[in-house]
């Protein structure tokens, strides 16, 4: 039996007077892709942000590298391994290149390694041509790819994608799907949310649906 990479247990989330999540357990595995489906407003985005450490749960526990701790205690360490991608990614002002290299500043790469790494990533994603373009001026599909690349270059253990296919035409979907398969084959654990369940073939290993604050 394969050990999970990270397990989140008993995630609960309340807003003022509404319960959004009421006892969600979710385990993430190396090189596996989970599809999270659910209606609009069912709490998919909230769940991903809690996993990424961007939203605070009312309560939750995390099992990671043999230890089980409260979300609050564990999240600082876990967050470094997890990247969340917005449904509509926000590209920072500056070029495509500066967006892609953003997270690398916080690693221990030297300047040459950083430059090589960015170059490799831009080629990998087919973005070399637009490397010097202002990121905010690009079309939605290309922006999405820049956001993928900006995350991939950091080689996180877990990648959380919020409705990545919702605003893409067929061609960009295929391209994005291709990129995701490559990420998976590199051992990344991927979680994708979608309210449309049968869009992504050959990528999904397990499928859960979120309704009434619970995962099935």
């Amino acid at each position, binding site marked *: 039996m394969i050990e999970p990479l990270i397990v989140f247990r008993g995630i609960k989330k309340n807003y003022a007077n509404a319960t959004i999540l009421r006892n969600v357990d979710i385990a993430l595995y190396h090189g596996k892709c989970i599809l999270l489906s659910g209606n609009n407003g069912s709490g998919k985005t909230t769940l991903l*942000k809690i996993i*990424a*450490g*961007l939203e605070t749960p009312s309560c939750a526990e995390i099992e990671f590298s043999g230890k089980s701790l409260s979300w609050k205690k564990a999240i600082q360490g876990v*967050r*470094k391994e*997890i*990247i*969340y991608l*917005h449904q*509509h*990614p*926000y590209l*920072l*002002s500056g070029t495509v290149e500066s967006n892609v290299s*953003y*997270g690398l*500043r*916080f*690693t221990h790469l030297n300047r040459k390694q950083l430059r090589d790494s960015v170059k490799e990533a831009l080629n990998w994603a087919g973005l070399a041509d637009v490397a010097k373009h202002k990121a*905010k001026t690009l079309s939605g599909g290309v922006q999405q790819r820049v956001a993928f690349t*900006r*995350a991939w270059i*950091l080689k996180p253990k877990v990648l959380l994608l919020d409705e990545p296919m919702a605003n893409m035409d067929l061609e960009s979907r295929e391209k994005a799907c291709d990129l995701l398969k490559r990420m998976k084959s590199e051992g990344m654990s991927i979680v994708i949310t979608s309210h449309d369940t049968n869009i992504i073939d050959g990528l999904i290993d397990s499928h859960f649906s979120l309704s009434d604050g619970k995962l099935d």
Partner: protein
Amino acid sequence: MEGILFTTQKALYLLLTGDSELWSIVMLSFSVSLKAIIMTTPPALLVAYSLVNGHFPGIRIILAVFNSLLSVPTVVIGLFLYVMLTRQGPFGDLRLLFTQNAMVIGQILLCFPILVALGYATINAADKRVRETAMTLGAPWWFTILTVLYEVRFGLLAAVLTGFGRIISEVGISMMVGGNIFGYTRNITTAIALETSKGEFAQGIALGIVLLVLALVLTTFLSYVQGKQETST
């Protein structure tokens, strides 16, 4: 009283011939107000950022306090500071009264709430995804703050320009805690007040023109910068 035309001619002459007394007064104004705005901007923006993103109680009350501080008249700030700095006052030993540093402190008190209030509005309007993006890409807390501030830099620059325009044109604080000492604490506004009371209009008008031109430049630049912020978001 001399004819207005003649006085204006004299004023222009002073300006264009680079009258050293006049321009040293102008430089003093800039020196004091630049120091004040430079020292105010970082802490005020940090406070504004914390008010937007912090999760501590009383944020609404703190905001309300800063907003009401916006309308405190400069003479009241001047009076308060005078009482603090006067020989018998709590900070009398610092010997700051009637110095440029006292003027700087007073102008800091004046523009701090302005920068907090305008900075808050600007940062609050920033896209919430900026902070989340920085955090999830591994930025440490201080770089996350810099990233958010950078994304709304034009709005923040507009706030700083507004604050600068306010302090370089104020007269109450400079007069009360600076004392209008020639060559030492006399700035544009206190000089205008003095010259006018003496009936010497030429220098007053010349300095007034400097202030007006400055206001014009600031306002033009401000609307340019605000346009930039709108197109960049």
